[in-house]
């Protein structure tokens, strides 16, 4: 209420002043006219005072109303805060600064700011040749990355893999994949050798990078890499990258209201994790492997979630039926982790399978077969629909000792489809 009191004080002050003035004037002996005039003035003043008081009162009422409104708002805010409404605010951004932190010294910046930009900025002065690089590499890097940077075991491969980026399993190395040489210098300098990062001298790093370039056929053996010629080296894959284009290629398309009913005719299982059996302890594989003896059900739009007899009607047509080939293609997903077919197919964990029907067993060029396969090969045995079906149904049962660690295809229809699919690829 302090606000309303403030409003009253000046109004009363004006009235007293006006009355006092009028009284003082009227006590002198002036003429009646003067008195009349004064009376009129007093009357006018009184009217003015009355109006002022009325105005002051109105203003006071308005102030009281505003005050009440403010009280009410304050109470609402308090209630809202109690009930958890949003009174949060981001950390304030101030005009100036907090003045925390101290100036970094040049020596400190030099010690930590060692990154190298694609245009070569950040490189220290120095140089190193391929031969020195080989020495340092064999000494400090080869135990993990191999003498020729070809990688040991599961450790990263640093060389080779050219022209594999469009293959099934691209081999991404410093040579085949990395778009900038700066990345190699920067990474080796700050993070390698693994377990002793930051111990290489600039010249050693130049020499190692020169050697890795040499291992990737990018330079000759007399090459010397230095901060001067660094940006002249051309990397194979310098044009191989595009900036994230998901917004254009994917987001626009995947924003439609999705289907809720009858979204597919039927649904079948095309691949199962337990067949691969690569889940570590704690995963769900062991239970499922023991428990699953039945074929997987097919779900269909009409009798959703009802197990039905799988496409048992499929005839053995010898692979001319395109629907069968298509079914085989989808069943082949369980083989893809190890086998390739089609153009550019090459040997992976398992041999490439082009033209396998009618082909001698264990005869794909450049693949190292198990003993049992080598024996079958020596005996001149040939793959036909029958022995292949038996092998696919139970690899270890039909060819004891095979390297194909795969549980087998349970569904006869899938086997028929697979054979049709394999038949569609000529050698």
């Amino acid at each position, binding site marked *: 209420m302090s606000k309303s009191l403030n409003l009253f004080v000046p109004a009363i002050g004006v009235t007293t002043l006006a009355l006092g003035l009028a009284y003082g004037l009227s006590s002198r002996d002036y003429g009646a006219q003067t008195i009349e005039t004064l009376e009129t003035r007093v009357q006018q003043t009184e009217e003015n005072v009355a109006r002022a008081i009325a105005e002051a009162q109105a203003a006071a009422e308005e102030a009281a109303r505003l005050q009440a409104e403010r009280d009410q708002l304050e109470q609402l805010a308090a209630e809202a805060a109690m009930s958890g409404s949003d009174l949060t605010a981001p950390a304030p951004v101030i005009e100036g600064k907090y003045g925390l932190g101290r100036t970094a010294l040049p020596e400190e*910046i030099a010690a930590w700011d060692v990154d190298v930009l694609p245009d070569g900025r950040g490189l220290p002065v120095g140089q190193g040749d391929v031969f020195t690089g080989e020495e340092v590499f064999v000494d400090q890097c080869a135990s993990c990355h191999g003498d020729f940077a070809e990688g040991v075991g599961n450790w990263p491969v640093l060389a080779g893999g050219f022209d594999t980026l469009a293959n099934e399993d691209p081999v991404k190395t410093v040579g085949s994949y990395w778009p900038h040489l700066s990345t190699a210098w920067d990474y080796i300098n700050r993070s390698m050798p693994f377990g002793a990062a930051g111990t290489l001298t600039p010249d050693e790093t130049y020499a190692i990078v020169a050697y890795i370039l040499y291992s990737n056929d990018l330079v000759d053996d007399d090459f010397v890499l230095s901060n001067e010629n660094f940006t002249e080296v051309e990397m194979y894959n310098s044009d191989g990258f595009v900036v994230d284009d998901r917004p254009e290629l994917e987001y626009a398309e995947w924003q439609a209201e999705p289907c809720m009913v009858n979204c597919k005719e039927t649904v079948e299982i095309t691949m199962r994790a337990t067949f*691969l059996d690569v889940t570590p302890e704690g995963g769900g594989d062991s239970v499922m492997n023991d428990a699953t003896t039945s074929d997987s059900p097919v779900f269909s739009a009409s009798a959703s979630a009802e197990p039905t007899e799988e496409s048992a009607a499929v005839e053995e047509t010898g692979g001319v039926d395109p629907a069968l080939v298509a079914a085989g293609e989808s069943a082949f997903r369980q083989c893809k982790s190890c086998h390739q077919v089609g153009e550019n197919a090459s040997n992976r964990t398992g041999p490439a399978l082009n033209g396998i029907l009618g082909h001698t067993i264990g005869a794909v060029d450049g693949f190292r077969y198990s003993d049992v396969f080598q024996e079958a090969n020596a005996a001149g045995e040939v793959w036909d629909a029958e022995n292949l079906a038996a092998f696919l149904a139970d690899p270890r049962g039909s060819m004891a000792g095979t390297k194909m660690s795969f549980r087998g295809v349970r569904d006869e229809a899938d086997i028929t489809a697979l054979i049709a699919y394999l038949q569609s690829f000529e050698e």
Partner: protein
Amino acid sequence: MDEIFKPSRRSFLRGSAAIAAGTVAGGAAAQGTPDPLITELQDWASYTGVGVDETPYGLPIRFESDVVRRNVEWLTASPISSINFTPIHALDGTITPQGCAFERHHSGAIELTKEDYRLMINGLVDEPLVFTYADLERLPRENHVYFCECAANTGMEWAGAQLNGAQFTHGMIHNMEYTGVPLRTLLNEAGLEAAGDLSDKWVYVEGADASSNGRSIPMEKALDDVLVAFKANGEALRMEHGYPVRLVVPGWEGNMWVKWLRRVQVTDMAVESREETSKYTDVYENGIARKWTWVMDAKSVITSPSPQMPITHGQGPLVISGLAWSGHGQITRVDVSKDGGITWETARLGKQGDTKALTRFYLDINWDGSPMLLQSRAIDETGYVQPTKDQLREKRGENAVYHNNCIQTWFVNEEGIAENVEVS
């Protein structure tokens, strides 16, 4: 509309039939025989338990010892440069306890004290600065819940169903409440006048560990919601998550959340470090690779039932539960299918999810014991609908490693056992 389970007399009878048939393990005792757990005086109701201070910092009770992070050994050459997985199948709600939140190290987790901690801001700034941990604590801070997902989460599933468990297929994720200082406050302390036009500028962030794991972040993001965090779920960060200070880059791939953050450099181009060229890029079928794919698109997974969480109670009431998230903002809806994508129902959200944070969803059903092909599909505030595996493969081929946000399928058989599968 949500399908709310209404217990009917028939399902109740069916449920009790299952119990009588003995298919329900460890259920309450059958009708007629009084339950000794109730009728007999139990030790714990008679003797006293352990006193306070028995464990000054408590761990989960020993009966929960299987709810732990797990590693897939064949994935990497050494556990020092490796990853493990959050047991998301066994958790509920949305907050991941720090002790079981996945770890990813490029050169092992290091011990760095608050006293030895230094953060340098340099490059195109008015005055390069060094902050101590104590300095950071004096700047205004914020609290936010965010998910952190490794770009390689679900990466092993590109070519086919491989790992049998939600922990292994989707466990490279955690969700914590962070306390930290906005990166923009620190950049403002150093002053950005020297950087001039900020629209084409970057910050390069690196850690204090041997790998340093440097990454380039566009200035726009750096000034937006990036946090320099020192607390998670109310307590100090764990060593394995970057104690004492890590970067939080909301909605963006986990590799950018640099741990043991030691330097932020303002630059005029991306550094193109090893982690943003050799790794965290994806090659497509034509051999061309995509880079700077920072945002984690909308994704979801049913955490139970799942291969590690089979249905053990037989027919009747069943809670289907899972997680959904999007690096583009809030999750607005999650649909669940029980028949491999033929029909979908909209699930119930545990609570409206925060932006760029995990959202819990539930579908409460009356399971009749028939096999299911369970799938979930997340939709975020941009209207983006989580794609199927085939949709993703059609766009990107099978050589990709990162950013696999496909719809996951679990096959649940009549016995309630679940398996990771792919469907047509």
